[in-house]
């Protein structure tokens, strides 16, 4: 029934209008001045402005650190959850996802308040902790799904061939779970590099991240510069997802 392929048409139109065109508009606005003339000034402004550049660098740094932290903490957790000899209940897995249903801003505010109560100065340390707290489930879940779906016989075969438990992990389990790590990285890195409200709350506005500058520019009607900053972020996203996709060939994104 070839006619049913035409059912994709409304959504195709929708995607062009609400996905493709808005992205093109970001590109268009970044190369225009306020009166709509072509200009490179928005881009040159970014590269000549020390503040923007350092914020950009800091955002990348925080995002990379946060992603690394999430892998470091999340991988063992996912491994334990997926190992049937260590954890037999799916309820534990649900417990990890559950906090995501509580408003993220509210949770972040409470975290910040907890730090204040404990007498910890809000700053980069609390920012990293808070972000890791917010995004950890997004790292655990995809790794857990790949590990849980993994055929146990690979590890058994390796053990049978004389590999020690550690070698089994290093040579078999870890490489096979990399697609899950890759989609976890995509799900953590992208949002952290662009976060804005969360970083404000966690540092009491002391540290500005790239997302905050975009938001400030857009809100202050500096659309063209805001668009240019978004354009630069789009390039970063394009690059990471391209690299991610290479590693991620054949992996499925786990829906919750």
């Amino acid at each position, binding site marked *: 029934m*070839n006619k*049913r*392929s035409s*059912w*994709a048409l*409304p*959504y*195709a139109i*929708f*995607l*062009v*209008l*609400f*996905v493709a065109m*808005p992205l093109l*508009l*970001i590109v268009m606005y970044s190369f225009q001045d306020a009166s709509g003339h072509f200009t490179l000034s928005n881009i040159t402004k970014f590269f000549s402005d020390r503040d923007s550049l350092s914020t950009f660098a800091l955002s990348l740094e925080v995002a990379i650190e946060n992603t690394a932290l999430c892998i470091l*903490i999340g991988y063992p957790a996912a491994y*334990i959850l997926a*190992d049937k000899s*260590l954890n037999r209940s*799916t*309820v*534990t897995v*649900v*417990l*990890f996802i*559950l906090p*995501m*249903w*509580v*408003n*993220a*801003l*509210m*949770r*972040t*505010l*409470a*975290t910040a*308040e*907890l730090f204040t*109560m404990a007498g910890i100065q809000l700053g980069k340390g609390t920012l990293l902790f808070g972000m890791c*707290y917010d995004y*950890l*489930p997004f790292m655990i879940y995809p790794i857990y799904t790949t590990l849980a779906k993994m055929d146990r016989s690979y590890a058994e075969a390796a053990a049978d061939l004389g590999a020690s438990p550690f070698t089994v992990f290093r040579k078999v389990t870890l490489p096979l779970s990399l697609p899950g790590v890759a989609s976890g990285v995509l799900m953590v890195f*992208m*949002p952290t590099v662009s976060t804005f*409200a969360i970083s404000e*709350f966690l540092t009491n506005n002391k540290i500005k991240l790239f*997302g905050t500058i975009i*938001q400030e520019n857009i809100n202050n009607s500096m*659309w063209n510069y805001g*668009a240019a900053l*978004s354009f630069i972020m*789009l390039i970063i*996203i394009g690059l990471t997802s391209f690299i991610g996709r290479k590693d991620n060939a054949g992996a499925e*994104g786990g*829906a*919750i």
Partner: protein
Amino acid sequence: MVKKIFARLYIAVILVVLYAPILFIAIFSFTEAKSLGNWTGFSTSLYASLFSGQMQNSSGLISAVNNTLIIALIASVIATLLGTVAAIGIFNLHGRKKQAIQFLNNIPMINPDIITGVSLFLLFVFLHFSQGYVTVILAHVTFCTPYVVLNVLPKLHQMNPNIYEAALDLGATPLQALRKVLIPVLRPGMFSGFILSFTMSLDDFAVTFFTRGTIGLETLSTFIYADARKGGLTPELRPLMTLIFLIILVLLLVINIRQAKMHKANV
């Protein structure tokens, strides 16, 4: 054995950290103090004022909750319908057309919220579309529909391709075949797509923030953000969040335990 204890401990520590802020909110929902973290003795008055609407910022919070629910409901219904029809179409497409539409479908899922928000903001500005309810709903449909497509497509792949033909063969018109066979078979995928859309819409902040315009439309997220920027959260948010968390906790546990039981019964 040591390994097991260590593993349990590790999981427990992470869970404690994950739940600490939520517990914190829940505990301090039982005290009257205006600011979070200040214990002024046990009281249920925040719950009382939440339900009676007798609070300082009452109209604001209640309308924010209403807006959040209405937007989430409308957006996820539209996303489910649009996404299901789209998935059937995509399933029957081949080659480059299929790749193109799947590529576009992936973009809102990969894009961070802020990019989706800014880009849609520019679209509405460009089209001189006045921003408000409609634009927020359209924006939410944009980032929800891909998840519906992603949940329905596997059901189509699993489905016996002859099922639709079998219905026609037994005398069903194409419309009857859709209603009596195709939709029921796709229903689990549509349902999980709907739930996913609904929760993402509920939780969204950035996209709403950029597409709500200047008419003063607030959802729960933007309300909390504005509140926090002003300094000091509306105290009634604490009981509200506690209740939302409890409802979801119970719902998820019930669903999971039932699934586990059904699974056992089938095995």
